[in-house]
């Protein structure tokens, strides 16, 4: 069966950022996203949340272009001040048209 090669952008960030990020991602061209709540540790140890270390993972499957846009956007706006991680990985998606 035919699947489309696309990018999945994964963002792991402080929970307070969720709503804003989701809005911005849609603005940059994401057609949807999957969200998981987890915890973690990195170099920056403090969050504005009562449960230390809890974070939210936002995944969105997008075209290469949109992936670049998103990575550029978050690097510019969030890396300096927030507990934040972002990476891109390759995925082969069923009915890929839906996501571009």
């Amino acid at each position: 069966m035919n699947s489309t090669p696309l990018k999945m952008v994964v963002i792991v960030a402080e929970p307070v950022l969720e709503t804003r990020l989701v809005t911005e991602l849609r603005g940059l061209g994401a057609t949807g996203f999957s969200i998981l709540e987890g915890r973690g540790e990195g170099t920056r140890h403090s969050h504005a949340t009562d449960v230390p270390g809890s974070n939210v993972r936002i995944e969105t499957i997008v075209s290469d272009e949109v992936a670049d846009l998103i990575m550029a956007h978050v690097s510019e706006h969030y890396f300096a001040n927030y507990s934040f991680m972002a990476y891109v990985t390759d995925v082969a998606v069923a009915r890929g048209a839906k996501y571009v």
Partner: protein
Amino acid sequence: MNEILRVNLLSPIALAFVLGVVARVIRSEFSLPKEIYQGLSIYLLWSLGLQGGVELAHATFDEIARPAVVTLLIGCITPISAYLTLRYFGRFGEADSAGIAAHYGSVSAVTFIAASTFVKGMGAEPEGFMPTLLTLLESPGIHIALAIGVMRSGSKTRPTSELLHEVFTGRTMVLLVGGLIVGFLIGEKNWSTIEPFYDTKGAIFRGALCLFMLEMGLLAGARLGDLKKVGPFLLAFGMIMPLVHGALGAWLGSLAGLSVGGATMLAAMAASASYIAAPPAVRMTLPDANPTYYLTLSLAITFPFNVLVGIPIYFKLAQMTQGVP
């Protein structure tokens, strides 16, 4: 005084909190499931609102007017006093000063509850409309402090509407204001059918509060390590600022005609620092304010200080200002 302190330190709430801290100190991994912790805080706020509403229905406008005014006054003074102290005595940056000030300008509902449990235990029944004052004090301080911060630090402002919406539709506001309205409307008869469950003097409420304080202790304990990061000035600030704001609250409260119990609670509100409403608002509006500062201050310094020793002091102050022997 010592007697009052001893009584307070041996209260279930205080001891449950201490136990939580100790558990963290001995590096126990125990903690309440996040959802249970949230459920408890929802229950506590909702009870507070409901009962406050029921009793509000008995209050006349005249009784509330002056206490309400001084409460709003406190909401305007405390963020500024905190900001100035940090900025000019502490030499902190704009963002940090304003960010921390937002916490001290707002209020901690649990400190409020601890205070009400304390004064009731002391037989100094507070006014029934205190929860109403709590809702008044929740947000002004946050907005004032953030406004200062945004104006003076270079930080890019976000739409104020967004911030207002955030603060006014937050958990605390929905449950407290909502509870007040519901409680106000249902009336005594309906209230009596649910009172034992929600009564803030009842065993269920107090029992739940103990469990909640246990988790609060765990959360505070988890931040003890950050105490050295905040440095001596903030350490002192976290205990002296509450005393100043507490004295102000006790004095203004008495002026406004509140009973000793009510004045003590207003003092505790003024002295307390928010750790639910303020942190996210500050995090989003002043990103370059260091969360370690404001979270450690409100959770690991000021909250324990108020619950363990502050409240009895404010009680004494209220007694003195009102010339009670």
